[in-house]
Structure formats: structure tokens, C-alpha cells
């Protein structure tokens, strides 16, 4: 698996060109659906509903990579739910159903969030957060954190290489020994991130960050027809799912 595949790449599909606020509506509504329902079939439908957006956005390949990347956690979630629920209820059918539902819920969330982040540029995201009246400092902090995820991934790889060169073997040992082996990776990663944060703060201050209360922006966002159409489609799908609960009483 290539960790760099999660990086945003500038492309110009219809989904990429949508206003990030429209996509935020999608993100929120569909997250509510995945959290609200517990029926595995409905959850699976919610998951499937993200597929057309991935196709329109021409991000199916990367979307699939992030789903594949989360498979490990999905198995983990399934097993733990299974053990936990079976322990308390002792009902096999219920246990299986709920465990499957939990796993699918997790995939759906991964799917929705990866579509949002794969098709939204960091600048757009920042702009929409500012439009939503969030304080600029927080928006910038969030944006920079996102910006440094790939850098951090790259650095983690270098650190892994450096420790392997000193004879660290990840494959050997039982689970506790394996967990312990991540200490020589995590400590240098944290320390060098802190060092970098300090350098960035200095660099920003020397370029007059925070010198004036108001600031101007290079890009501004505008909602137009396609954004409203997208939002309306999202709301219709959302209501359709909810009506299943009202008319058929599916949880």
C-alpha cells in the first residue's frame, strides 16, 4: 500500500469543482445516516451511494485504496464487536448482524470522508471554514495539520528505514514485542514534528503572521446552480433513507 495515495491532487472533475460547502452538506447528511441506522442492508446502501460520487469525481482508484487501507480496522471492529456483544447477549444471529453493521458503518464513514478530502483542495476547505465564521487561526492550524500529513508519512518512512538499518526487525516477536518496536519510530517522529512546528512558527512570525486583525484573501468562494443541485440531490437521498424508518420502521 502506498501511503502517499491519500494526498489531494488537483483535478477538474465536476465533484472537484463543487463548492466545498456543498460537499460539506453531503458529508454531514451522510454521516448522520451512517450513525443513525443500524440495519446492515441500509448501511450498505449508504455505502453504495458514495460510489457514483467517486466515479463522477474520477477518484475511484484512490477511494478504493483508502477502503483497502482500512480493511485491517474493519476486521478488528468486527471481531471486537462480535466478542463483546456475544458475551453480553449470547444471541448468535443478533451478534452477527450488529457486528456486520458496525463494520459496514465504518467503511461508509471512511468512504464519505475520503471522497470529501480527495476532491476538496486544502485552500477551498480553508475558505469554506472561514465563510462558516470559524476563527482564522483555528482554520489555519487545521489546514496546516492536513498539509503535513503526507510530509509526516514520508518522514515516518525515513525513520523506519533508519531503524531497520540499525537492525530493528518488525516481523519478529509476539504482539507485545511488536508494539514495543514502534517506540523507536514514534519518538523520533514526535520530536522532529515538534522541532518542525517550532521552525514554522518562527518562519510565520517573521513573515508578519498576525500583524493585523483583518486580512484579505486571494480566493473567494461562490455557490452557483450546480452546487444547489448537488445539495438538493443529497437532501432527497437523505430524506428517502429517513422515510424508510418512518414508513417501514427499519432501524
Amino acid at each position, binding site marked *: 500500500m502506498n501511503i502517499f495515495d491519500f494526498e489531494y491532487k488537483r483535478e477538474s472533475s465536476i465533484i472537484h469543482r463543487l463548492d466545498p460547502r456543498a460537499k460539506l452538506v453531503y458529508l454531514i447528511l451522510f454521516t448522520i445516516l451512517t450513525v443513525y441506522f443500524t440495519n446492515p442492508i441500509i448501511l450498505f446502501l449508504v455505502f453504495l451511494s458514495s460510489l457514483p460520487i467517486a466515479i463522477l469525481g474520477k477518484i475511484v482508484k484512490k477511494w478504493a485504496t483508502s477502503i483497502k487501507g482500512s480493511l485491517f480496522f474493519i476486521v478488528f471492529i468486527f471481531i471486537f464487536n462480535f466478542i463483546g456483544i456475544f458475551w453480553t447477549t449470547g444471541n448468535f444471529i443478533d451478534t452477527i448482524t450488529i457486528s456486520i453493521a458496525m463494520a459496514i458503518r465504518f467503511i461508509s464513514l471512511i468512504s464519505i470522508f475520503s471522497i470529501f478530502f480527495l476532491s476538496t483542495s486544502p485552500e477551498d476547505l480553508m475558505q469554506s471554514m472561514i465563510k462558516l465564521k470559524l476563527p482564522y487561526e483555528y482554520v489555519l492550524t487545521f489546514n496546516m495539520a492536513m498539509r503535513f500529513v503526507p510530509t509526516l508519512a514520508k518522514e515516518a518512512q525515513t525513520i523506519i*528505514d*533508519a531503524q*531497520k*538499518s*540499525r*537492525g530493528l526487525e518488525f516481523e519478529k516477536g509476539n504482539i507485545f514485542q511488536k508494539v514495543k518496536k514502534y517506540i*523507536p519510530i514514534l519518538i*523520533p517522529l514526535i*520530536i522532529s514534528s515538534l522541532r518542525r512546528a517550532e521552525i514554522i512558527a518562527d518562519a510565520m512570525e517573521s513573515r508578519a503572521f498576525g500583524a493585523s486583525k483583518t486580512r484579505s484573501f486571494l480566493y473567494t468562494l461562490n455557490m452557483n446552480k450546480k452546487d444547489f443541485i448537488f445539495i438538493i440531490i443529497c437532501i432527497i437521498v437523505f430524506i428517502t433513507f429517513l422515510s424508510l424508518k418512518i414508513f417501514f420502521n427499519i432501524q
Partner: protein
Amino acid sequence: MIEFHNVFFSYQPGKDILKNINLKINKGELLAIIGPNGAGKTTLIKHINGLLKPQKGYVKVLDMNTKETTVALLARHVGFVFQNPDHQLFAETVEKEIMFALINFNFPENEIKERVERILHELDLIKYRNKSPFMLSGGERKRVALASVLCYDPSILILDEPTIGQDFHQKLNLIDLINKLNKEGKTVIIVTHDIEFVADFIPKCIIMSEGRIIADGPTEEILTDSKLLLENYLLPPQLVEISIALNINPPTINFEKLVSFIRKIIERKE
């Protein structure tokens, strides 16, 4: 001892970083790899301890094919000191940092103690033994990183940019250490942008550019070929530039030689 045979490597399909590398490095050689950024120098050296495996061709180190050997097994023979010490330091004390590799390689306890003691003395780190490596200065951290590799006595030593951030005094200490290790029979490979350092101290060098080995030979020949250097975005050493400016043919990287040439020119004028 180290052999690259028709090696190709790419991180992304279609973009070869190493293009048909053929290279032999003999036991006990001391050589530098130079070249512009993105030439593939670091990618090349990562093949020597198996961190990267060739996609075409093969790399053999001490008669082991790196494709069939683990990094840990190769690392026992190939010491690799990374450019940035912050990418490997993690322990509470300098002493424990140095022990890390020794424990990984299953050295017996009394030998670990003995080796740590020896390397702390050798690299002048004895007064920091119980200090946290993070409290040390940049140059000192670099020395700890070096110590943590040298302690297990690998027969091949790879140093990625060892002179960055080191003052002149530290550079002299470094070259003393490199020479000493080389005299003990170790093969030492240095990747660097520091042309002057190579000109002054390293007898053999390789130029890489765009994934290929452009030149491979004695430093005296390669670094005096200013055309070759400029073609590959490298600045010739100052002594070579002076030689060329004074029409000294062939140009030299040897300080004494250059001085005697200049003396002759002055005497002729008088």
C-alpha cells in the same frame, strides 16, 4: 565486495530513478558519491543495505544477493548513518541509544558494555553518556548517530551527508575517524554535496546524474575535469578553478602542487 549489475529502480512506474547502474566497490575502498539533487544518490546507497531492492538486475553485498537477504542481516555488515540524526535518536540516554543496535544484533551483555565504553571514548561522547540525546547540539547528535552505528563494527560504512552542519574542526575530526576506519580495512562510502571535502580528503569518487553513473575514478582525475563537472551541475573545487584561471595544465586539486606552480609563475616574472 559490493556489486551492482544492470540495476533499475523506480518509485513510480515509468519514472526510473536508477537507470542501468553497473558498479563495483572493492573491499577497503574509500569513495565519495557526488551529483546534483535528485540524481539518485540516496536511492543507490539504500540498495546496499537492502532497504530498497532492485526491480531489474541485482545487487550483491559480500556475496549476498540483497533480494534474498533481510535488511537486518545486511545491516550487520553494512552500517548506514542517515543524514538527519533526528530520524533515529529515541532513547533516554546516549548510552542506551548506542546499545540499541547491539541489542538488536544479540551481542552478549558484557560485550555490549565493552563496546559502548569504547565508542563513547572514541567519539568523545563520554561526558554525555547519561544525557538525553535530544539535549545535545546538532553536531553532537550527529556524532551519537554515528556512534550508534560504529559500535557494532560493520565492515562497510555508508555516510549520507556527514559534513552538513559541521564546522571545520568537526570536519577534520570526521576525516580523521574516516581515515582510521579505512585503515582498519573498512569500506567507506560517503554521499555528499561538499566538493571541497571530497577534493581534500577522499581518494576516489563517483559522479551520478539523472539516475546514471557518469564518471567513476580517482578524485584527482574526476574533480579536475571542469567540463564534466559543470555539465553535471557541479562546481569544480576552488583549487581547480584557480589552476584553470592561471592556465595550469593539467589542473590540480593538490594544494602543495598548486602553490609550487604559482611560485614558478612568480619567479618567472621576476
